[in-house]
């Protein structure tokens, strides 16, 4: 028990004194995952709109397929990305394995289904009465699309935050395609999973606290949005 307590005290000390290693790892983690969430959103929100506003054969199937991929294991994506970007793989010429870029690529793939699926259901949940009113007032298709997106903005925001939360808390992709290289691709989760086993408990605890704090903020934001 004293070990845990001492560890916690040291961990808090590391955070309060802005220990360079802790700050660097936390900052890198946030940078990578924010990038993933932003890039993912830029790709997925327009695509989700396209799916929502168009009628086509197999739409239902596509949406349930997207939803099936919500809980795709991170290690599976890690493996998939690794095989592609490894130098012996089809995209090996890029030479991005074991770089932060590789982690972002993997995380974008990871959160794409969540961003797509949640954005589509966000758009679906917009009250039909609003659409009917708009149509009766003579709105064009384009104007109606803008109206729907505007109405659904909170839920879309929630989707983006969910995506961010999934990205920052994953460990499989970061470990497999990032390589946990100190000072380069070591992020919060890989540091915790590998450094704990190397006896660096205080560092892991400090990073764990930061990760929980980030998760907490994400949840508060989610609640706020959902309570509207």
């Amino acid at each position, binding site marked *: 028990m004293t070990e845990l307590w001492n560890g916690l005290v040291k961990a808090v000390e590391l955070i309060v004194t802005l220990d360079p290693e802790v700050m*660097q790892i*936390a900052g890198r983690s946030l940078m990578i995952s924010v990038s993933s969430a932003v890039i993912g959103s830029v790709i997925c929100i327009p695509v989700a709109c396209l799916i929502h506003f168009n009628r086509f054969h197999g739409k239902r199937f596509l949406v349930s397929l997207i939803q099936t991929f919500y809980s795709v294991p991170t290690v599976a994506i890690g493996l998939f990305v690794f095989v592609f970007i490894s130098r012996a793989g089809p995209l090996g010429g890029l030479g991005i394995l074991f770089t932060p870029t590789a982690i972002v690529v993997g995380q974008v793939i990871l959160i794409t289904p969540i961003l797509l699926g949640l954005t589509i259901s966000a758009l679906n949940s917009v009250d039909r009465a609003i659409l009917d009113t708009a149509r009766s007032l003579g709105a064009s298709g384009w104007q109606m699309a803008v109206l729907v997106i505007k109405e659904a903005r909170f839920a879309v925001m929630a989707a983006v935050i969910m995506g961010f939360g999934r990205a920052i808390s994953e460990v499989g992709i970061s470990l497999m395609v990032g390589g946990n290289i100190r000072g380069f691709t070591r992020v919060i989760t890989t540091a915790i999973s590998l450094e704990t086993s190397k*006896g660096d408990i205080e560092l892991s605890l400090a990073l764990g606290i930061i990760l929980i704090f980030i998760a907490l903020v994400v949840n508060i934001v989610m609640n706020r949005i959902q309570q509207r």
Partner: protein
Amino acid sequence: MYSSLRKRSKIAGALLSIILLAGLVPTVIGCTAEEAEAQYPLHDPLVRFKIATTTSLYDTGLWYHLEPIFEELANVEMDIVYAGTGIALEYGRRGDVDAIIVHDRAREDVFIADGYGINRRNFAYNFFLIAGPEGDPAGITGLSAAESFEKLYDEGMKGTVKFVSRGDDSGTHAKEKLIWKEAGFDYEEIQGSGDGYVEAGKGMGPTLLMANEMQAYVLADISTFLAYNLKADLDIVSLVEKDPIFLNVYAAIAINPESYPKTKIDIANRFINWLISDEVQEIIGTYGTAEYGRSLFYPIATCDMPGCPPVEDYTTPVPVYSK
């Protein structure tokens, strides 16, 4: 109604920007802190030299010690990927790193013969040991490696003791298989022998901690064992040492540029020559003396028993390329 909606959206927006800003602030702090720390001199960040290293050299902290020295010398940013010999060889086969540090002579030979690796040089060695609970319930103290394994198998089948294997195709795992073979077992038979045989699938340090938690027997290299004994105060003790089969020789291999032209063979060669240089050999011979009262690894030139590599394997420098 509408105004409260507006208000909430503002709150949500504010919180969202807090998250985004929080993402940027530590980065800025991180950058300045990095400069202030000055542990790593800032190099041209474009030149990244990647190696995959066997876990024991990493878990003992040797790379933390050597990394900044080579970074300064060669003016590169060194990226060290933590991987057991099996995974390191796989990274090498795929051309994902520029050099590998491994310790399994048989598989190294295959790797080189297949055209993936060149310029192998041995640069350090140490020994394995079998550690176990202090009371030694299997009674292996004083036995040879093979005899100990036989005993551990018998006791394991009775359910009295457990053995934790690396189970990750590492060099240590290869050595373990070799000892099982010498003891007259078929490895598949061991794998299927039940609860007494635990395959950890982890690096050396984590496997030691696992054996410690389970009060099980484990094959480990002396260096990692000593390092963890100091760091984590292990309850398992070294029981069997000094068997010739325990010799453990580390090798550095450059990735063949003919297989992967993009690998940085010039830096890899320089790195290998540096490892066998007097400077690094002296560091290897003294690393750990302050903390453990003895060095964790031995300079390769002091290896003089059967199984040691021929002298030219560590005295002949590899070719140096210049543009």
